[in-house]
């Protein structure tokens, strides 16, 4: 797995504008950069290839009847090095293999919850394994967590 250097280039896929703004502000406060935001699968498909995000936060229920699992597949097919984190009120609905995504943040999240998850994810992506304790707000996908054990 490639090592990235902060600031990470972050894509936000969320159909609720306020929540998207909220997440964007917290991602920026964590020292990263928002490269794009999308409200549906169609928005993600319409992004230019050069957007190539390092990290994508993906809501499960999206606008125009689309969903985050399809967005996850699309991102993996198009930018296969992007780390994908689901953000959802129903973490139980995520399949066991996470559809190849790397983790999940449960909604509702607080500023503390998202910031500490962001910090932990940054360590997991840029300098694995993460050294700070895993925040309760974040759950790594089994495959992603295993990749740290072998580094």
């Amino acid at each position: 797995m490639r090592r990235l250097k902060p600031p990470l280039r972050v894509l936000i896929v969320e159909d609720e504008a306020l929540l998207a703004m909220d997440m964007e502000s917290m991602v920026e406060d964590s020292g990263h950069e928002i490269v794009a935001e999308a409200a549906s699968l169609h928005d993600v498909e319409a992004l230019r290839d050069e957007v190539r995000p390092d990290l994508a936060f993906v809501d499960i229920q999206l606008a125009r009847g689309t969903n985050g699992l399809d967005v996850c597949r699309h991102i993996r097919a198009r930018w296969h090095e992007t780390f994908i984190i689901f953000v959802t009120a129903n973490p139980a609905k995520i399949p066991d293999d996470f559809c190849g995504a790397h983790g999940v943040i449960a909604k509702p999240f607080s500023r503390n919850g998202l910031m500490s998850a962001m910090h932990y994810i940054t360590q997991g992506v840029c300098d694995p394994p993460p050294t700070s304790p895993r925040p309760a707000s974040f759950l790594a996908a089994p495959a992603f967590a295993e990749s740290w054990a072998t580094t």
Partner: protein
Amino acid sequence: MNERDDWHLTDDIKHEAGRGDPFAAAVRATRMPMVITDPLQPDNPIVFCNEAFQKLSGYEREEIIGRNCRFLQGPDTDRDAVRRIHAAIAAGEDIAVDLLNYRKDGSTFWNALYLSPVRGEDGAIQFFFASQLDVTERVLRQAAIAEQKAEVEREIERRTADLKAALEAKTLLLHEVDHRVKNNLTMIGSLLRLQARTIGDPEVAGRLEVMLERVDALATVHRRLYQSDDINQFDVGAFVDNLVSDVIGASGRSDIRVEMAVERIPVGSSKASALGLVLNEVLTNAIKHGYPDGRPGRLEVAARGGHGEARISIRDDGPGLDMADPLPGGLGATLIRRLSKQVGADVRWENADPGTRVVISFPVES
């Protein structure tokens, strides 16, 4: 007369000696239709019928004598009942059965038939004696009652299905409302957070953060409400479980180990928001004071119902509070005081050494 000699009376009839016999006279004159058949003759023909039987069947005596009883049957006579009669005759047993019979004019009547063998001194069957009774009214009345009962049952079933559908629609609607309320509360949280970001003063930002936690707790209440099967009840136990996960998750503190033992505690939905806010104040307060500056520790949460009282205890293993004045200051204290009073709850702080235990108790229906 000795009852054991009763058969002599019917025996006498064989000899047509009954004209002056008071018992034979009674059989002739009674209002109960009766016939006697002779199984020793081919096809077991009727050898005697009384006047009441002629009246009931509409046939003259000459049309009756010498015929098998089946001439009373018609297209709607129950074949199974007829088979049972044949079986009883073959076995030499008596039988009582309700049978649909036909009069001479084609009209029908329900016949409560009682048929019994008459045996001679040697025990061999000599005659069959049959009494009939027109029970058409009784049978029709029973059928009418059964039909009415079935109709009422069908109606009840229809109404029950309607009510069930109405309740399901209402539940769905309320769940949708709670879902939307929860989403709106989440949006209010985002708005407050976006605003907090622009506030330079850490104390003001901190207060806004506490306000956010309260909004989040209310969002958790509504999440529980739309996930509940019973719209009138709110499970405080499951809520406590959710709230603790949410608050610990929101704090980003993975160094606080939670031990949770919660039971189902149903309370009226109208108490949900107030109880939710009280629990939120107590819990966030325990986390703030029990585990300051990243101090790791253990949080014990227990919720029990039963015996008419619910008891929720939250225990931290932190430095402990000044028991003389355990209540958190400011709006938090006021919220706990006023809202617990509103729902009839009692909140007590105890020295758990180490740490503090807060016990919230309130009456519930057991």
